[in-house]
């Protein structure tokens, strides 16, 4: 499988603090990859760097979006704005839910369609036929995404009235609507009960299998991480300390040390 995201030597300094230290990560097509590590390890900073919210101090972020014919071109995306990164095909969700609370569920997803549609001010005012058709397609596509995620019954509710678990799902739906090749999920299972977590597990697998979208997720729920991911990267203090399959990570002494601390011989 070809690599779709390649991060080489990514470094991010906040003043004197090195939040990310020469990080190398790669994601292949059709993979579910987890990024784990103790609190403050720099996982979310990593997300913010590759989605353009922060400008990394050093290093390369290279994407090669998969194309149907198999011809994919490599592209360095450092310094692009967040909306341009999304347009390139990397969509994300947020650790602390960031929906548009006063818009309806459908409208939240329709916002995701924004970068794939073109209607401008003139189109909005004159509503020529092409624009009407585009608007209808935005509505239909968004509704289809909601059906896929299982939120269709909330379609006209305000986003802020949704139950917590549904809000998390709506973030995923919104990201899906941007037609990404890679979705970045920042703690998607945070605050979910075991039943919801189990459904999320199935949903993420389904997104990968049905849509062919690769997934990179930050998660603290180890059960979910172990059952879901093909590969795991472990971070601590801004450095990558381990990588491998769930089985390898589970038994890696370095990882255990990072999470539980070192054993002291008396």
């Amino acid at each position, binding site marked *: 499988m070809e690599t779709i995201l390649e991060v080489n030597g990514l470094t991010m300094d906040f003043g004197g603090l090195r939040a990310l230290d020469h990080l190398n990560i790669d994601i292949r097509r059709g993979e579910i990859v987890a990024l784990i590590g103790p609190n403050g390890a720099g996982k979310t900073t990593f997300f913010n760097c590759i*989605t353009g*919210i922060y400008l990394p101090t050093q290093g390369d972020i290279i994407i090669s979006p998969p194309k149907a014919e198999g011809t994919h071109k490599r592209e360095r995306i450092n310094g692009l704005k967040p909306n341009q990164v*999304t347009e390139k095909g990397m969509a994300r969700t*947020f650790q602390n839910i960031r929906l548009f609370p006063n818009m*309806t569920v459908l409208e939240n997803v329709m916002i995701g369609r*924004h970068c794939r549609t073109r209607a401008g001010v003139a189109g909005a005012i004159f*509503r020529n036929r092409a624009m009407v058709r585009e608007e209808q397609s935005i509505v239909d596509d968004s509704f*289809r995404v909601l*059906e896929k995620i299982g939120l269709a019954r909330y379609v006209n509710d305000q986003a802020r009235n949704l139950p917590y678990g549904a809000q998390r799902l709506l973030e995923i739906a919104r*990201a899906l609507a941007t037609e990404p090749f890679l979705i970045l999920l920042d703690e998607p299972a945070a605050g979910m009960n075991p039943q919801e977590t189990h459904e999320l597990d199935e949903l993420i697998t389904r997104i990968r299998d049905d849509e062919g979208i690769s997934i990179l997720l930050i998660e603290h729920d180890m059960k979910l991480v172990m059952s879901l991911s093909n590969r795991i990267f472990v971070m601590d203090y801004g450095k990558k300390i381990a990588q491998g399959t769930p089985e390898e990570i589970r038994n890696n002494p370095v990882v255990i040390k990072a999470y539980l601390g070192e054993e002291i011989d008396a």
Partner: protein
Amino acid sequence: MMPTLSEIKKSFLVSLWFMFLTFPIMVIRVNTTEKLVLWRWENMAYMGIGSFLLSFVWRYMLWRKETGKKDSESGTLQLPSFFERILSDRRYIVPATAAGIALVAIFPFVMDTYQTNIMITALMYIVLGLGLNIVVGLAGLLDLGYVAFYAVGAYTYGLLNHHFGLGFWTVLPIGAVMGAFFGILLGFPVLRLRGDYLAIVTLGFGEIIRLILENWNEFSFGPSGIAQIARPSLFGIQLSLSSSIIYLYFVMIGMVLFTIFVVNRLQNSRIGRAWIALREDEVACQAMGIDKTRTKLTAFALGATWAGMVGVIFAAKTTFINPASFTFLESAMILAIVVLGGMGSIVGVSIAALILILLPEYLRAFSEFRMLIFGAIMVIMMVFRPQGIVANVRRSYKFQPDKHS
């Protein structure tokens, strides 16, 4: 279990406190010439009864608001206001519109010039309110210098008419373009700002424009302003004063309808949704692929366009403009219209504009208390209906579940 004993007790304490506070000024009167102290105890009784009743009514209203919230399950369903109930009932819509159209059509012929003039002003504020509504209500960018664009429009017409003799209809689109241009001009430096910082910069921008107009004598004729600006002509025919006011009234009606039409379409379009998303969460909005820069600039430009056009109409209406018409108070007034009417709601903003502009005119008898009443209305509105007269309701869509999947 509404008027509980504790509520009464609280109101009673409030009234005691007020009696104590006002004791020195309301009760004691010292007559210095005759060296007499007059004790006016009856005033204390009035104070006590008055403040008790006011406090009690206030508590009762708050209580009603609270229970209203509890009744609606989700906690966000507010009780519909009078206007919302009329708007949502199909039976009332047709007769109400018919009556409205008839009223609008005969108004200038029934009423005298003075009344028509006031109505034109109110209509102008509707358009201004709807324009600012794009910036503040939809895109969530608090703009305290909106009057600057209004001034730009007015001076565009004033100067072009004075120097080149250009007519009203020629300058109207130019005024719109100038408004949009200045909107973008303001938009660029404030792209990175939001909230309070944005408010301060826009406030400064409004003052800069006014000060330039006031001090650049060669350009804008300074505080003495521009006089004898031509009134709008009807296909080249100059109208008499009274008929030109009637004419302007209908121009303004057309303008209001045009604005409502455009703003309504924008609101439920791809651009409008992007504005609202920007208001709701800037970071998430960008992460979802919306170009923040472009979205903000379109909001500023399209908002300012209306102010530019109304500015042209204002210059044509008064035939005299000077910088004194474009003070911060005007911006505050327009902002009050948007907030009072309900952010993002077209009907609400229109109603609020009519109330805030017409009411002071008809309450001339109480002109000394005008600002007091104005302030009280704003405070009461913010406590009991913070969402405005008519809350903005997002459009809902219908789907057949079996059509898809």
